[in-house]
Structure formats: C-alpha cells, structure tokens
C-alpha cells in the first residue's frame, strides 16, 4: 500500500462515516421528520426520536467504528510502509 492508497482509503472511510452521520441527523431528524413521525416507537414519534435521541447514539457508535476501521488500516500500512 502506498501513501496515496492509504490516504484515499481513509478518505473513502470518512465519506462513508459522514454519509451515515448525515442520514441519521439531517435526513431522519430534520428533512424527513414529518414522514417518520407517522411511525410510533413507544411514546416517541420516530422522527422526533431521531432528532432528540437516536442520532446521538449513532454518532457515538460511528466514532468508535471509524476509529477501529482506521486503526486496522494503520496497521496494514505500517507493515508495508517504506519511509
């Protein structure tokens, strides 16, 4: 793996992370909130739940997920790095 390949894989990983980040907060919590609000989750309307609870849980998970993915990538890169 070259330096460029390492960086490009990282950028792709970041984009993946930020797509999920966008979906749970902006899409589910704001843009599609009215549609999702027609679904009930206990006493929560689903869109409202995403905006005030769900997105935050996903954010925490996302950071740890990204950190573990990139840590694996770092290890692979360190095995073959030339500099």
């Amino acid at each position, binding site marked *: 793996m070259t*330096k460029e390949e390492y960086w490009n894989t*990282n950028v792709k990983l970041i984009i993946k992370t930020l797509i999920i980040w966008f979906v749970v907060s902006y899409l589910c919590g704001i843009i599609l909130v009215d549609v999702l609000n027609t679904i009930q989750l206990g006493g*929560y309307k689903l869109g409202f739940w995403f*905006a*005030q*609870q769900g997105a935050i849980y996903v954010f*925490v998970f996302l950071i740890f997920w990204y950190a573990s993915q990139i840590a694996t990538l770092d290890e692979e890169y360190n095995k073959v790095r030339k500099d």
Partner: protein
Amino acid sequence: MELQELTITFVGLTFLLYMGIAYQTRAKSSEEFYVAGGGIGPIGNGMATAADWMSAASFISMAGLISFYGYGGSVFLLGWTGGFVLLATVLAPYLRKHGTHTVPQFIGDRYLSQKARLIGVACLIIASITYIIGQMKGVGVAFSRFLEVDYNTGLSIGIAIVTFYAVIGGMKGITYTQMAQYVVMIFAYTIPAIFISMELTGNPIPQLGLAGTFTGTETFLLDKLDQIQVELGFAAYTTQERLSGFNMFVYTVSLMIGTAGLPHVIMRFFTVKTVKAARASAGWALLFISILYTTAPALAAMAKLNLMNTIENPMNVANPDYKDISDNLVYDERPVWFKKWEDTGLLKFEDKNGDGRIQYSADKSKSEMVKIDRDIMVLANPEIAQLPNWVIALVAAGGLAAALSTAAGLLLAISASISKDLFKEILRPDMTDKQELATGRWAMLGAVAVGGYFGFFPPDFAAGTVALAFGLAASSIFPALMLGIFSKKVGSTAAIAGMLSGMGITLLYVFQHKGIMFVKSTAFLGDMSPNWFLGIEPNAFGAIGAIVNFTVAIVVSNMVKTSDEDAAKMAAIVENMRTPERPGEELADTSH
C-alpha cells in the same frame, strides 16, 4: 439539614476536591502547563473533554431551551454532539499528528504565515472571551439562587476558585479537575431526572421514561404534553419547528462545525500520546457527553409537564379529559420555589383577570405568567417535582462544576495562545521555558480579569455571545483547519482571504440588526426584515459564513501562485499529518 446548609456543604466539598486535585497535579513545566505533558489516556481525556465541552449552557440552559422549543430545540442536541463526529474524522487526529500546543499555531505553521496566525489568535480570543462571559453569568446565577448571597459575591467566589486552580494547575491540573467535575456534573444531572422519571412513569431510565405512559394509565407522556400545549394555544411539543425546517438544518450545520472549530475543545486532543488515542478519545468524549445529552430531552419534557401541572391543576396530567381552569393554582397558595424564583426576577406573575388564580396561555394578552426565564427550568426542576433537599443541593454543585470546568478550559486556550502565538512566535522568540510558563500564567490572570469584569458588568452582548463564538469558530477556524489538512494547494493568501470573508459575512449578518458588538444604536440595515436571507436566523449563520470561506479560499488558491519552495514545504507538512504514526512511535513535538 436545611437546603441552604446542604448546598453550602455540597458546593464546599466539591470545591475542596477540585483544589486538592489541582494542587496534587499542578504543572511544573510549560509542556505540562499547556498539554499536560502529552500523556493523558483516551478515556481520561474523553472525560475531561466532556466536562470542558459541557458548559453552563449545556447544563443549565439547554433543557430549558428544549422545554420551550420542543422539537425545535433538537438543533442544540444534534449540533452540539454531531460536531464530535467531524472532530474525530476530519480534524483531531491530523492536528495531533502535526503536534502543536494551540490552534493558531497550527494555522501559522501550515500556511507559513504570521498573518494567518494572528487572525487565528484574534478569532480564538474573541470566541473564548465571549464564551467565558456566559460561564461567569452561570456561576453568578447558581450562587445567588442557591446560597442566597448576592450575584456579585457569588461571582467573586467562583472567580477566585477557578483562578486558583487554573493558574497553578495548568492543563495538567485542569485535566484531572475536569474529570472530577464531569462525575459531579453527571450525577447532578441524571439523579433528579431518574427521580422525576420514576415519579411520572415508573421507569427509572429517563430516556425510556420519555417514551412511556403515566404510571397507571394508558396515556403517553409526549402525547399528553402535545395535548396540553395545544389546549393552551402553543404548538404541539413534538412537532413545533424552529422558524422552518430549512433554518433548523442550517442552524444544526453551524453548531456542528462550530463545535468542531472551537479552540478550547480541539486543544484537549493535544494532550494524548498518539493519533490513535486522539480518535478514541473523541469517541469517549461523546459517549460521556451523550449521557447528559440524551437525558436532557427527558428532563425538558418532564419539567414542562410538571410546571404546567403545578400551574394548571394537580389532576390535569393524570386525567386526560380534565379541562376546567377554575381549578388553576391559587396565586396565594403558590409553592416556595415559585416565590424564591420570583425574588430573582426570573419568574413573574401578573393577575390580569383578577381571579387570584394563575392562567398560563400562548396568548400574551391573557397569559398571567408574564415571565418564565428558560434558564430556571433545570435548576427549579427538582423543587417543582418536590424532590429531597440533597438532590437540589447536588444540582447546584453540578451547575457550578459545569461552569467552572468550561471556564478553566477557555482560560487555558487564551493563555496558551497569548504566550505561545503572540510572545514566543512573534514578539519574543528567545523566551526560556520558565519565562514562557510565567507569561502563560500572567495571560491567564489577564483573561480572568477581562472575563470577570464582564461578569460583574454584563455588556449588551452577553445574550448574543453564543452567536459570536460559534459564528467565528464555524465560519473562520473550522474551514481554515479542514482546508489545511485536506488540501495541499491552499496557501496563506487563499486561507487569509477565506477566513476574513467568512468571518466578515457572518459578523455582518449577526450585527446588522443587533448592532455592532450588540450595541443597539449601531444597528444598520434596520429596515430589512429580520432573518432576511432565506429565513435564516443570525445565530445559525456560521454555516453560510463557512461556505463563503471555503469558496473564497478555493477560488483564490486557483488564482494565486504559491512559490515552489513554499508549496514544497506545505506539501511536506500535509504529508506528515496524513501519515499514521509507526507502532510505538512517540509523536514529535514540533512546537519547540
């Protein structure tokens, strides 16, 4: 014990704890003073970051805002947490790899420009000082209400404590104190929420209680809240928007990138040993933060229900069909907490129809609750719910922990920037480590003096500080940092043009109606409608400023040619940031 004695005991004990920790872990070198020697573990740093981040605004104000804005208050929940995903993925690891002590230092290094560094210093100081004023106010309010001393005495005590431990402790002392403050804060926030959730729904976990039904009924809490709000003429709690969906979208973006760009938060990631630890500690920070942030919506909704229940009538909440307002609370029989908050002027009643009972309504001409300051919701909540006195005392200690931990982090960011970026880099490059440490401590005292002054004499712009701090961080610092990492091409001219235009347009929009530095007489564009640009409110404008910043910087970088020598230097800096550390590698500290 009486409430006041209990409060003094709780607050006194926590203060002794903070000072003891600060003394034990005081900084002995400038390395320890600014970045705690670079040896804090990811979980510890995560906890300290959580305390650093969660200010009086998070602890005292946020649930109150959600109480009154309902769904519209989600912008704060999303914005102030989502920023950490950005920090973990696009900023913190690379800034840590580069290895500086301050944010302007990175900007100066990366763009090879003292001018860029100075703009960074200016943004940092304005953003941090305005932020400190908010903390000072929080300290004053908490003291004056709970210890029943006057605002100025309370503020003086708070300033003395934070000065003592920040100045001697430096980043190292502050880090360990913040861990203790996090623990105090989180217990103070969740315990009342657990009690209230138990009382209303029988479920001890507030996050689940909010989804539940009232004990012994089939009525969902949130449905009932919607219903009462609508009956009183307000918008339904779970669907009320803040101006518009578009405004909420932009507001959330602004708060997220503002969070990621606030120097005192970024600085915490310079205290860990490795890039890997920087990423992990962002995760831990958000995990610790999320405990408070997911409790806040439950606290907000339950506090609102309890408040309306007290005013409207005791049976109203449990009985869905009850509507008779002739049973509303008789003013002369109002509870003790009501009277105490009236004394502070944050709660006001006016008997408009002269029936001696309290009516609360969305219709301003009829509503007899002429003032309910949103900031009292969290502090008054345990009293409204009639929780034991020790819970109320704990809340006071928690509110103070939140304000002090953030104030200390801000003071450190200011002092590091003044001594490192102004003195060491520009004015007196030949300073010894000892002189640098002394300069840092004096700069911190200076920052306390300025912050304290504004605490005693709150300026007109106290209320607008959030807009200013987040606006600057979002429109100026965040894009400069992100471009510095993700582009090799953007050089000093482009970065400076971007920062100035992003910042300029944001400040222009914030100041146009509110006046320059919020002095009303200097308001311009007074004849245009408020929020004239696509219905975006000024507090939400940082995102637009950031777009302008990015666009200008990229356009200019395509027009201006950087010298080959500079381009090679910048490329080397960027390459180094993007490359992971070797196993077991001790990261170089490039700041010396």
